[in-house]
C-alpha cells in the first residue's frame, strides 16, 4: 500500500515544476502548457486525498477541474492565435502594450 505522502510528494513536484515553467519560459504556448501541468498536479492531490479519505468528492472535483481546464485552454489558445495574427510573434517579452 503506497502511503499518502508519496502521492502528495509527487503532486507537489508536478505543481512546482509547472510554477517554474510559468516563470521561466518565454513562449506563450509553453506557459499555457505549464499551467496545465500545475492543474494536473492539483488533480493528483485531489484524487489521492479522495481515495485515502474514502470519499468520492475528490474524483468529482477533478472531473469539474478538467472541464474548466479544457474551456480555459481553448480560450487561451484562441487569444494566442489572435496575438500571432497581430504581431507575427508570440514572444511574451514583446507583448508590452499594457505599459503605463
Amino acid at each position: 500500500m503506497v502511503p499518502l505522502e508519496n502521492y502528495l510528494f509527487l503532486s507537489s513536484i508536478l505543481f512546482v515544476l509547472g510554477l517554474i515553467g510559468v516563470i521561466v519560459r518565454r513562449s506563450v504556448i509553453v506557459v499555457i502548457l505549464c499551467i496545465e501541468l500545475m492543474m494536473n498536479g492539483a488533480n493528483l492531490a485531489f484524487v489521492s486525498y479522495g481515495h485515502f479519505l474514502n470519499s468520492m468528492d475528490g474524483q468529482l472535483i477533478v472531473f469539474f477541474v478538467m472541464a474548466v481546464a479544457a474551456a480555459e485552454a481553448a480560450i487561451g489558445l484562441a487569444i494566442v492565435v489572435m496575438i500571432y495574427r497581430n504581431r507575427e510573434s508570440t514572444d511574451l517579452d514583446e507583448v508590452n502594450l499594457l505599459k503605463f
Partner: protein
Amino acid sequence: MSGWIASLAMLLSFLVSLSIFFSFLLHSPQDRILSIFLFDWIPFGSLKINVGFMIDPVSSIMTLIVTGVGFMIHLYSIAYMREDISIVRYFVYLNLFSFSMLLLVLADNFLLMFVGWEAVGLCSYLLIGFWYEKPSAIEAGKKAFIVNRVGDFCFLIALFQILTIFGTFDFSDISRSASELFMKDSFNVNLLCLFLFFGAAGKSAQFPLHVWLPDAMEGPSPVSALIHAATMVTAGIYLLVRNHVLFSLAPSTLMFIALVGSFTLLFAASIALVQNDIKKVLAYSTLSQLGYMFLACGIGAYATAMFHLMTHAFFKALLFLGAGSVIHAMNGEQDIRKMGGIRSYIPKTSFTFIIGSLAISGIFPLAGFFSKDAILFSAFKSHSLAILFWFAGLFGVLMTSYYTFRLVLKVFYGDKNFKENETHVHESPPIMIFPLFVLAFFSIVGGWVSIPMISGGDVFGKFLSSVLNPTVSVDSHHNLTLELVLMFLSLGIALLGIFLAYQTCCKKRQFFSDSSVVGMRLFSLLENKYYIDEIYSLILVRPLRFIANLFFKLFEQNIIDASVNGTGRLVKSLGANLRSLQDGYVKTYAVSILFGAVCIIFLLVFNFSSRF
C-alpha cells in the same frame, strides 16, 4: 482726515489725564493713587499676573506729558506730513505708539510694562523706517530695534530674577517687600538693579547703547520730537523712578548709574559740538540731557529727574518741531552749513526756536534753568564723590549752551549760505506754528513749579511726595545760600557758552588754529562720533555676519536644504523605480500575481496549521 481723528483721540486722552491730575490735586497726598484692575491675565499656580493700571502722581505726570506733548505733535504732523502718500500709516503708527507708551506708564506690574516697553520699541522701529524706500532709513530702524533688543534682553533677565526672588510682578508688592527680601547693598539686589538699568540704558540710549539715537533721525521730525525727545527715551527714567525703592537698596548700582549718566552727558555733548546736521545736533543733545536725568537718579534725586524729564520734554519737542519747520522752510535741507540768516524769512519759527534754545541752556527764568540747576545742586550736596558729578554737570552746561547757540546762530543769523532764488524759504502754516507757541509757553513757565528760593515753591516735589521724597528742599538756610551761589555759577557758565558760540560762529574766531595737529585730531575724533560705530562694526557686526555666513554654508545649505531637496529627490526616484514595475509585460504581471497568491496561501497555512 486721518490726522484729525488721531489728534482728536490724543486730545481726549489728554483731557482724561488732566482730569485725573486735578482729582489728585484735590485729594490729600495719601489718596493720590488710583488702581484699576481689568482682568486676570496669566494665572499660573501661585503666580498671578493681572492686567491692571495704577496711576499715582509719577505716572500722572508721565501721562500728561505723553498725551499733552503728543497732542501738539499730532497737530503739527497734520501739516508736516500733508503731502506724504503714507500719511494714514503715519498716524496709525503714531497713535499705536501713544497707546504703547501709555500702557508702559500705566501698568501696575512688570510684565504689562514690558509689553508696553517692547511695543514702543516696535513703533519706534516702524516710525524710524517710515520712509522705507530710503535704505538709510531701513538701516536706522533695524539698528534702533537691535540695539534696543540688547537692552530688552537685560530687562528680561531682570524680570526672571524678579520672578525668582519676589514671586510676583506687581510694583506695589515688590516695593513693599523689597526691604525684607534684600540686604542693603547685597550682591543680589545690585545685580537685579544693574540689569534693570541696562534695560533702561537700551531704551534711553545711554553709553554704550546710544548708537541708535542719532541714526533715528532718519524718521520724520515730529517722530523725532515725540519719540526721541519727549516720550520713549524717557521710559528708562520712568523705570528707574518707578522702582526707586529697589534702587535705593543698591547704592553701588546707583553710583554706577550716576557715572554712566555723567559720562554720557559729556560724551554726547562733545560730539554735538561739531555736528552739521540740525537733527543730529538735537539728537546728541537729547543723549546729553538724558545723561543728566540718569545722573539725577543715580544720586537719588528722583523727583529732580522727573522734573528735568518734564521740562526737557517741553523744550526738546519744541526744538525738534522747530527744526522740522526749518527743514520744511528750506525744502528738505538739513545741513546747517547751507543755511544762515533765515530769521527774517521765518520769524515765528526762529522766535520759538530761540526760546527753546534759551530753555535748554538753562537761562533764568526759563524752564531748563530750574530743572538743570536742581540736578546740579543735588549733585553737589549728595556725597563725597559728588564734586566730580557736579563739575561734569557744569561742564555739560557749558557745552550745551555752546552747541545749541552755535546751531541757532548758524541757522538763523549770519551770512546766507544758500541761493535765495533757488530755495524759496517760506514760513510754516499756522497749524504747525500753534504747537510751537504752546510748547514755547511751557518752556518758559514749566520750571516755575519747583522754585527753591520761595518756601513752598517746590510744588512739583510736593505733588510727587506721596511717591518720592523730594530732594530739593528749602529747609535749611545755608543750603539756600549755597544754592543761590551755585545757581549764579551755572547761569554764568551758560552765558559764557553763548558768548563763545557767538565768537566762533559770527566773529569767526577759532580755538584751535587750522594747522594744529592736536586740534585736527580732536576735531575729527568728535566729528566721527569717537568712531564708536566703526568699533561696533568691527567687534560685533562683522563677526556676527561671519558666523551667520558660516552657519548658512554649513548647516542651511548642506544639511537642511539637502534634506529637504533630498526628500523631494527621494520621492521622485522612488516613483521612478516603482513605475518600472508597470512595464506592460504580461509575464511580470503574471509572476507578481503568482507570487502574491503563494504568499497568501502560505499565510493561511501558517495560521491554520498546528505545526508551526
